[in-house]
């Protein structure tokens, strides 16, 4: 890079970073990585987006590389810098780069149609980005299926202040999915036959097995129950290993991407789920995993054996292998079938045992929001014992002094109460907003919580204010052909690790475990609630909010400076990793003022998730499900902050 290395080092020294990394000054140099994307550092970057051919499976296929690399190079930025990135499009079609999770001016956000026109073939677009945050993020195309064929990469931002996370080694672990079928075909296959890729259907064979194991009567009853709805409990992922292979830093499992360590060293692994349709369950058999950051924001360390990472989420973890052994980094998709795999090893060329894959998960009636019926999964939620939840014993989910949930919402974890229909409202905006004060106005966007940030609190009188509902009435949803069901029973399932992970004998991270390291900066209570149902018609492959897909819907309006609560209710039987561009989503998981700041949140089937948003950055922002083909078929809204 043309950037002065000396200046970079000087700045590090000035910030006193050297002291913190156990005497190792040159973390980047210490990395010995095979087959990983290049790491680029500095304040100016040139990225060339080019068509390429790749061969992952024995077939040559069209792909996109950035500076000759798939995934693209890892960009290392520094908080406080202003970075310029000149992106040149050598493709025959328009392209874009979106900086996922970054708090940047809207016109730099890289969403064609909202931020800009896109980058035309042959053109260069220069992104100019003031870097006001730190942590692990990523970048990807926001243009059709380009992300599927390689237009993505990792983005690592070093903190200006002392990094509270101590480590000796630092590796990006970027997970992605690859199909030999081009994205347009894949997209239209799903539209024409939504179960195109589901080769885990219930068959005569599974009927016989079930009848043998569970009895004929209950098997027949179960089949009839699901049959009545024309849905199937084996509907886990719309696209899965019947067409995908899974990559780790661009390497198929056999290539065995390897990260080296010396026994005793603390290894920081920055997991990024850069796939387009795949939720991964990650573990490193033999090593406890300490999660220290989620979506770029430090969390109080929590040690687990496994974690689920939704599409577009990031988790930074620390592992500390003491033995001179190799360990497998194992990432199996929720839909199982195949896996991404790499190795942590003291020397190159080592391998460790690859664990067997877990059984194929099945949806339950609880996932359908019909928790009162047989086969209910509610036991899983109410039956969670406190010693499975270290540090969570005293917490009430959703209950907290200054960002309390609206009562009456059925936030009870044992849940399964009859749904409150009147609470199902819809984004509709006219209510009074809490204006921004001068001090805050000068600070937009609000700073990322850190050791030097303060929590801004309104006067006590405003603390008591109750948020207004965004719409009254009982017919909030547009119940057209876009919607096949409305979950009757929804509840937060924050302590539920998710379908396929319950009862596997391992300690699995849940959203209830995430507690920010630093207090949130905005202590104001929300003045409004925006309630959105995540809806879909699986058979027709129509997805949307409140029964409307993007092309049928109006934007959601937020007033600059207001603080709102988003309430997402998942009326479908699939997970949706929801991503709000440009603004933080502060998950209300019972951590109160230490609510974790996220940019992407998995909403489980029949789950009700709430989070707070400070509308501190003006612009047109995208808000969508990060499963690419759900987004492409309608689960997308524009959020206008003005």
């Amino acid at each position, binding site marked *: 890079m043309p950037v002065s290395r000396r200046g970079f080092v000087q700045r590090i020294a000035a910030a006193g970073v050297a002291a913190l990394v156990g005497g190792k000054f040159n973390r980047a140099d210490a990395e010995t990585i095979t087959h990983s994307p290049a790491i680029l550092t500095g304040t100016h970057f040139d990225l060339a987006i080019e068509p390429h051919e790749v061969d992952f499976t024995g077939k040559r296929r069209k792909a996109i590389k950035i500076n000759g690399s798939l995934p693209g190079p890892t960009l290392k930025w520094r908080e406080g810098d202003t970075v310029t990135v000149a992106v040149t499009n050598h493709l025959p079609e*328009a392209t874009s780069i979106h900086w996922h999770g970054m708090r940047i001016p809207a016109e730099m956000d890289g969403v064609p149609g909202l931020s800009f026109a896109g980058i035309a073939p042959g053109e260069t677009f220069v992104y100019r980005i003031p870097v006001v945050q730190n942590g692990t993020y990523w970048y990807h195309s926001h243009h059709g299926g380009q992300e599927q064929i390689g237009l993505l990469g990792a983005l690592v931002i070093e903190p200006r202040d002392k990094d509270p996370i101590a480590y000796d080694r630092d590796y990006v672990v970027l997970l992605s999915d690859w199909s030999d079928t081009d994205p347009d075909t894949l997209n239209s296959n799903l539209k024409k036959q939504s179960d195109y890729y589901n080769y885990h*259907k*219930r068959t005569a064979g599974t009927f016989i097995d079930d009848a043998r194991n569970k009895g004929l009567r209950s098997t027949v009853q179960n089949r009839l129950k699901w049959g009545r709805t024309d849905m199937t409990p084996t509907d886990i992922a719309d696209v899965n290993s019947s067409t995908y292979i899974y990559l780790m830093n661009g390497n198929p499992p056999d290539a065995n991407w390897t990260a080296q360590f010396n026994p005793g060293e603390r290894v920081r692994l920055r997991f990024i789920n850069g796939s387009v349709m795949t939720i991964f369950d990650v573990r490193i058999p033999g090593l406890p995993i300490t999660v220290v950051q989620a979506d770029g924001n430090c969390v109080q360390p929590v040690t687990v054996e496994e974690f689920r990472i939704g599409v577009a989420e990031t988790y930074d973890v620390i592992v500390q292998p003491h033995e001179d052994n190799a360990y497998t980094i194992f990432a199996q998709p929720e839909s199982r079938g195949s896996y991404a795999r790499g190795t942590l090893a003291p020397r190159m060329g080592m391998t460790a045992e690859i664990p067997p894959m877990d059984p194929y998960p099945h949806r339950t009636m609880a996932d359908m929001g019909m928790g009162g019926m047989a086969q209910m999964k509610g036991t899983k939620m109410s039956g969670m014992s406190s010693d*499975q939840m270290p540090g969570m014993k005293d917490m009430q989910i959703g209950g907290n002094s200054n960002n309390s949930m609206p009562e009456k919402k059925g936030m009870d974890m044992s849940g399964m109460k009859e749904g409150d229909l009147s609470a199902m409202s819809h984004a509709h905006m006219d209510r009074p907003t809490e204006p921004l004060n001068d001090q805050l106005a000068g600070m937009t966007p609000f700073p990322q919580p850190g050791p030097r*940030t303060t929590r801004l609190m*309104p006067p006590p009188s405003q603390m008591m204010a109750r948020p207004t509902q965004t719409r009254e009435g009982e017919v909030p949803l547009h*119940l057209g052909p876009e919607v096949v069901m409305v979950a009757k029973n929804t509840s937060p399932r924050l302590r539920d690790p998710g379908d396929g992970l319950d009862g596997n004998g391992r300690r699995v991270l849940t959203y209830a475990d995430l507690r920010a390291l630093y207090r949130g900066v905005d202590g104001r209570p929300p003045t409004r609630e925006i309630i959105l149902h995540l809806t879909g018609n699986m058979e027709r492959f129509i997805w949307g909010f409140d029964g409307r897909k993007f092309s049928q819907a109006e934007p959601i309006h937020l007033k600059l400076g207001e603080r709102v609560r988003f309430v997402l209710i998942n009326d479908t039987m699939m997970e949706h990793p929801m991503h709000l561009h440009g603004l933080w989503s502060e998950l209300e998981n019972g951590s109160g003022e230490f609510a974790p700041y996220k940019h992407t949140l998995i909403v489980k089937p029949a789950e009700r998730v709430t989070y707070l948003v400070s509308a501190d950055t003006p612009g047109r922002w995208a808000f969508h499900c990060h499963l690419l083909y759900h987004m492409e078929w*309608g689960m997308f809204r524009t959020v206008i902050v*003005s």
Partner: protein
Amino acid sequence: MRSNLALQLGFAGVLLPSFAAMPACAQAPETPVDAPPATSVDIPTPAPNWPKPVKDNRVLTFVTFDQLEGRTNGPNTSFRWDGQGWIGTDFNKLWIKSEGIVSNGVTSDGDHEFLYDRPIPHVRYLDWQAGARVDIDSGPRRAWLALGVQGLAPYFFNFEPTFYVRDGGRVAGRLQGYYDLYLRQRLILQPQVEMNFYSQPDRARGIGTGLSDIDGGVRVGYQFSRKFAPYIGYVYSGVFGQTATFSRQSGEPTGAHQFVFGIWLWH
């Protein structure tokens, strides 16, 4: 689980001493602020030439053949097709259907429909369809207005009832349905049936009043891919009532049991 907890606390403590040195309370205290004034900014409007961020209403095309098969019972063989396709979006489609049977150079049962298709609100998986049907084969031509329903009924039954009207108040009906029973993930057993009804006889086409014919069978196919699945099966086709009388009068058989082989296709 208890040991897990100990492991976790111990591990975190040893591993991350710097966390302990910098507890969250090291942050500056909370800062109360006064009620703030309002702010408002203008957001630039997207230029007209900007693309849509997602294209969820794009036009697709689809073609499928449920029957593309040879039929034989030894001495007699025939070729049968039954296909449909559409072009359009989620809510507006032009739907085209075509079926017919060719035996000994004579085409019969030639039925071709051109329908506008739209989802029925509040009915999850069913569409209504309206348009025209023309009977074009080796017999006299007929034209009908058509109104029908097509889609997935509960319990995964695919069905397709259609009503037809033509001049002179003649009414006809057709009921088609099939069920895909998965024996294995790629091995499918498909019972299928089609029945036709007519309100008035049409001698020139050999059709009588009431239930005129049934064409039904069972096919077993293997999906090499979703788009390509060869199959074999058995089909019974027969005529009934007045139609059977007409058939007998013209010396044609009133029923046939046939072995079939073909491919399911779609694109």
